């Protein structure tokens, strides 16, 4: 009974702590999240024109990379997530890319036929769900991102080309993965972590956190012996 009370009170404190932590949110990140959730109307027809004509049109209208307001986008469209959710969303630094390339048409390759629409409409206006039977030639949003990014990175020999170069892996829910008995001690917890993350354990042994051996003998009374630190008088071994 007492155990239960302790457990629940602990839980409540934890929840309270978490909700306290959520008070502050990064405003730009929230904005990016909101933007990523938006769905825009599908552009059925586009101008299949030479890229030069497109560039000229941009010049005429005075649209340049300097017009960009957002620092970054979160490429996290529900269009993709509906089908699968394999990796964490990519933080695409729109402004930075634009500043480096200084050419909108490198990515905004076509423009909508409808003149009233933006010349540099967003990717998801044209590229939505994959394999649209009415537009078989139009690739889906996920493929559009991947093809556009990877191809350019490869060509320019700049920028990541591997999966985790851009994505964070989705961290799986550890609730089902961790198998610990009630009241496991520190060593058991460590062993359980190492069951999957043995590489992380190896890496840990090479870090200062592990190798630190207390105050330098040269600073404290010039003694040669080592007194503290995880390598010696450690509090725990993880």
């Amino acid at each position: 009974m007492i155990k239960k009370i302790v457990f629940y009170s602990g839980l409540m404190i934890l929840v309270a702590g978490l909700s306290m932590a959520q008070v502050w949110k990064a405003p730009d990140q929230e904005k990016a999240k909101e933007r990523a959730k938006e769905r825009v109307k599908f552009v059925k027809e586009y101008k299949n024109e030479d890229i030069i004509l497109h560039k000229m049109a941009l010049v005429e209208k005075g649209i340049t990379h300097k017009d960009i307001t957002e620092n970054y986008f979160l490429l996290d469209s529900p269009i993709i997530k509906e089908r699968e959710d394999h990796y964490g969303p990519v933080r695409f630094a729109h402004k930075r890319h634009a500043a480096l390339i200084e050419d909108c048409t490198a990515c905004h390759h076509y423009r909508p036929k409808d003149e009233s629409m933006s010349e540099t409409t967003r990717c998801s206006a044209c590229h939505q769900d994959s394999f649209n039977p009415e537009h078989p030639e139009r690739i889906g949003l996920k493929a559009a991102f991947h093809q556009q990014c990877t191809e350019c990175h490869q060509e320019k020999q700049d920028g990541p080309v591997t999966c985790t170069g851009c994505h964070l892996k989705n961290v799986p829910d550890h609730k089902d993965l961790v198998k610990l008995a009630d009241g496991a001690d520190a060593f058991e917890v460590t062993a359980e972590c190492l069951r999957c993350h043995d590489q992380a354990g190896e890496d840990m042994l090479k870090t200062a956190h592990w190798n630190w051996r207390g105050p330098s003998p040269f600073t404290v009374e010039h003694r040669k012996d080592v007194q503290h630190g995880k390598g010696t008088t450690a509090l725990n071994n993880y």
Partner: protein
Amino acid sequence: MQLTRRNFFKFMGVTGASAAAAPSSAQAWQSKAPPDPYGCLVDLTRCIGCRKCEEGCATVNKLPAPVKATCDCTVFEKKRRPDVNAFTTVNRYFSGKLDVLDKPSPTYVKVQCMHCQDPACVSACISGAITKKENGTVHYNVDRCIGCRYCMVACPFEIPAYEYHDPITPEVRKCTFCFDRISKEGGLPGCATICPVEAITFGKRETLLKLAKQRIKSDPNKYVDHIYGEKEVGGTSWLYVSSVPFSKLSFPELPETPSPKLAETIQHSLFSYLWSPILLFGFLGGMMYKFDKKDENTQDKGGA
């Protein structure tokens, strides 16, 4: 020989009549391909060899995780074939093509069941365990399978794998075309869903053929002018386009005749309505009767 004459005449009457009627009914061979099947177009120029399709396939079909799943390139050192635990595999080929930096550029090839329009395995299967579905799937039903492996003999792509290490209940295993998924509205095969670059395009075969032709036409320098699967063995539901000739990528060179055509033509022209066995039966009966009668005059009947 105990041959009652009256019975014999009765029997001969029937056989003669049916034999006369039958030969005309042996028809020319007709394709049994579904009219508007689904398919997949694999664009080898797009494939980056990430092997996510293997992963997606394993998840969807509840198979063990692919070997060296995490982008380990040593996996490409050996050519892998689909097997009982992996319905699709990606292999790497260096065909002499160079990339922008003059380095050998790899071509990755995904292998799986081609889901032929007139599948040899379907024609071969002794008990109809393999069927070609309306949606294009070549579907295996283990409940009818006897494990004879004739499908494997017949398959020109060498796709069906077999649980050789199961002594009593081995199954034939191959790409399912995610039959249950694509049977639902908007459903996609696992590999096509997960492919990051849409190297696999899912759709109606007709649409995909048009799309493939369009891609080749719009970029003739990039593609070889060949849609693998358009005509091979009478056409397959899965189609491939490539920048490298298919012969360099372990694609078997195949005739345009559907594999079952010859055997089925012979079988059906000989055995439809069992006309030839009945005719033969009648002929042999006639011979037996003739010689039996001749014998009666000379000697006693010989016992069987």
